[in-house]
């Protein structure tokens, strides 16, 4: 393992969805061989571990919904970390895990997203280190994709709590929501679609250190996800 590079990514699992994760996005056989080890750990919203397990790196796709349903039945939101070790030759391409997400029995289109790479991934070798990646932002379309927006945050630290600032922009109006997360705790922060007649245009996230973070958009009636996306770093 001494020549390995480490990458820890994280996502969130809600019941009622098909949720598949492609373990290595590269399609060639050599890429699969370069994923040396992968361990998953599940956390309930308060941060308590629901179990850690090794995953067979030879499989192409992991049925994450089935795994979480078996290990954490009845938990409304589970944070899952993907603690991966790669042969360093796989870099500088960063081998994100990609995921498919679809509400069962829903006419909505499935969502595809890159599992949020939170720890490691040799950012200096993919030229990401010039960015201050604990400050992130997301711009919303003027025509909203969903009727309810949120920011889903998870603290991957083992010991350190974090105080984050979630800053919303509705037109010229700026509002700050402080969020405190204990180690491995995770939360959904509601982002109002409108404030004083102005639409939500932008959200910023500022923290001491990088968190697992996704913007969510949901239908008002079904609550089904129509947006599940990572934020963007914006300081260079």
């Amino acid at each position, binding site marked *: 393992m001494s020549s390995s590079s480490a990458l820890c990514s994280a996502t969130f699992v809600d019941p009622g969805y098909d949720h598949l994760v492609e373990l290595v996005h590269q399609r060639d056989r050599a890429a699969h061989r370069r994923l040396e080890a992968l361990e998953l750990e599940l956390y309930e919203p308060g941060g308590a571990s629901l179990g850690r397990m090794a995953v067979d790196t030879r499989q192409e796709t992991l049925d994450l919904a089935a795994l979480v349903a078996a290990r954490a039945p009845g938990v409304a939101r589970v944070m899952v970390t993907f603690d991966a070790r790669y042969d360093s030759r796989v870099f500088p391409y960063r081998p994100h895990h990609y995921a498919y997400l679809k509400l069962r029995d829903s006419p909505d289109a499935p969502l595809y997203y890159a599992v949020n790479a939170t720890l490691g991934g*040799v950012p200096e070798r993919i030229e990401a280190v010039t960015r201050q990646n*604990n400050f992130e932002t997301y711009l919303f379309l003027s025509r909203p994709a969903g009727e309810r927006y949120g920011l889903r945050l998870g603290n991957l630290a083992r010991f*350190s709590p974090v105080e984050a600032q979630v800053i919303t922009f509705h037109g010229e109006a700026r509002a700050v929501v402080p969020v405190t997360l204990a180690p491995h705790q995770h939360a959904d922060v509601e982002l109002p679609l409108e404030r004083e007649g102005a639409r939500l245009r932008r959200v910023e996230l500022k923290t001491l250190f990088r968190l697992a973070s996704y913007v969510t958009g949901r239908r008002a009636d079904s609550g089904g996800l129509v947006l599940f996306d990572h934020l963007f770093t914006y300081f260079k």
Partner: protein
Amino acid sequence: MTTPGPSPEHDPLLLCYCTDLTIGQLREACRAGTWPLPGKERTGKLCTGCLGDFLLCLDRFSAAAGNARADR
């Protein structure tokens, strides 16, 4: 909010995923007064994800090392 800090059982765990630094390596470097170790200088400065744990561990390990020196 206070949380339990790192104990020796955490020593094999990876603290910085970018520089491949374990908790035990940081503990030992602080004890020996050799932090930062060669090649580990950018710990906490790359992906930044470990920065909270790194500062917490550095603070506690440095304090423990200082106390040990004072007791001699």
